[in-house]
């Protein structure tokens, strides 16, 4: 039970974005309060509390299936040019360090500002792995390290990645980063190390534990923008499917016909 609480309670750390840098800050008092609260809850109505919390999660011992296809809808009308809460949250969530080497530092999600050459209209949007249905990175990977999970999440299996970087050459979205240096102090749920390629995992660890959301979307919502909507594209009743049906959502580089899992509206 202790493990369950520690791992299922994702509010252990609090984001502090007082500066541009990623700051890890563990508010001990808040943390303890939350843990105690969770314990009390767990003790009084366990296991009902846990069951409620993980209602959307598949059982831990079952493999993921194509019943779900996880995706994201990004509303560029709402996305703010000067806001990078999603980026900060992602870095925080996965322990992506800014080592002061912009050319080689990893960026799983980044903010793009695009300006229409004709009209001068500027749009701001986050760009990350688009979790294609037919991912070019998976096609070119010689060792099947780049792969697509049954539920549509495109991942790198770092155990078989040899660091050839062919997937980075193939990705139309520049969504992948190569780890250019030895790392230490990685977070338990986000293992990463020198010599492998990595990219947005669509917060697979959160998806698997039933959070039904990603760190970036949570951060965007917390800042009151709600430009990022995570959900199940296969479920016609999910919010993302309803929004897509109502307002539509385009793919970036739709000409490549990759059927991306990340869609944009307002472009």
């Amino acid at each position: 039970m202790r493990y369950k609480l520690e791992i299922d309670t994702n509010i252990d750390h609090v984001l502090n974005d007082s500066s541009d840098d990623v700051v890890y800050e563990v508010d001990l008092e808040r943390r303890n309060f939350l843990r105690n609260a969770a314990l009390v809850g767990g003790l009084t109505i366990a296991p009902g509390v846990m069951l409620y919390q993980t209602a959307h999660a598949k059982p831990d011992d079952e493999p993921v299936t194509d019943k779900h296809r996880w995706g994201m809808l990004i509303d560029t009308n709402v996305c703010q040019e000067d806001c990078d809460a999603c980026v900060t949250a992602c870095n925080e969530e996965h322990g992506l360090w800014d080592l002061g080497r912009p050319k080689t530092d990893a960026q799983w999600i980044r903010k793009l500002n695009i300006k229409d050459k004709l009209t001068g209209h500027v749009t701001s949007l986050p760009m990350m792995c688009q979790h294609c249905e037919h991912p070019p990175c998976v096609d070119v990977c010689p060792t099947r390290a780049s792969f697509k999970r049954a539920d549509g999440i495109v991942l790198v299996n770092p155990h078989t990645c040899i660091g050839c970087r062919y997937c980075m050459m193939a990705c139309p979205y520049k969504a992948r980063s190569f780890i250019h240096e030895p790392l230490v102090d990685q977070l338990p749920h986000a293992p990463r190390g020198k010599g492998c390629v990595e990219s947005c995992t669509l917060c697979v660890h959160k998806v698997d534990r039933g959070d039904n959301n990603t760190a970036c979307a949570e951060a965007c919502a917390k800042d009151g923008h709600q430009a990022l909507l995570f959900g199940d594209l296969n479920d016609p009743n999910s919010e993302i499917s309803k929004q897509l049906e109502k307002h539509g959502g385009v793919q970036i580089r739709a000409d490549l016909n990759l059927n991306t899992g990340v869609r944009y509206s307002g472009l």
Partner: protein
Amino acid sequence: MRKIIKKYLVYVLLVITLIFCAIGITIAYAHNDHPEIPPPKENYNDETLCVEPVEVMRKEHFTFVLDHRDKTVIDGIRTKKHSLIECIECHITANAKGEYARYSEETHFCASCHQFAAVNIDCFQCHADRPEEAIRKAINPNQTVDQSSEQKIQHYLQFSNAEH
């Protein structure tokens, strides 16, 4: 000259090999005194103590972890029994001073045996070698006091280099 070298080359190589063996054995014995390792948090159950019988774990732990790793990465199976995170969570505990050993130190549960048996693994090049609590503490030792990013990078690079 060449003939002489050819004639004695085998013997010379043999002697060199023997010397290296002797040095190796001596070093191994010199390191025989096991470092004191903090005990695991608790027993998994009273019967097997660990997730499998202890004798089995000593010999086979890596097969469990390797098997589980593919299931987790590829199929998204997240059971805790053979999960590396859980191994670390339970086995890597703080010493009397409240410090957690890194894999590069011989008081680390995994390293204590691997160093003795000269087993070279690359798990901890990517995976956390300490429980999340210890990692977060290491990332920000002062917890509530904000460190400048420069300091953090220095701290980071210091350990990053120490790994080698």
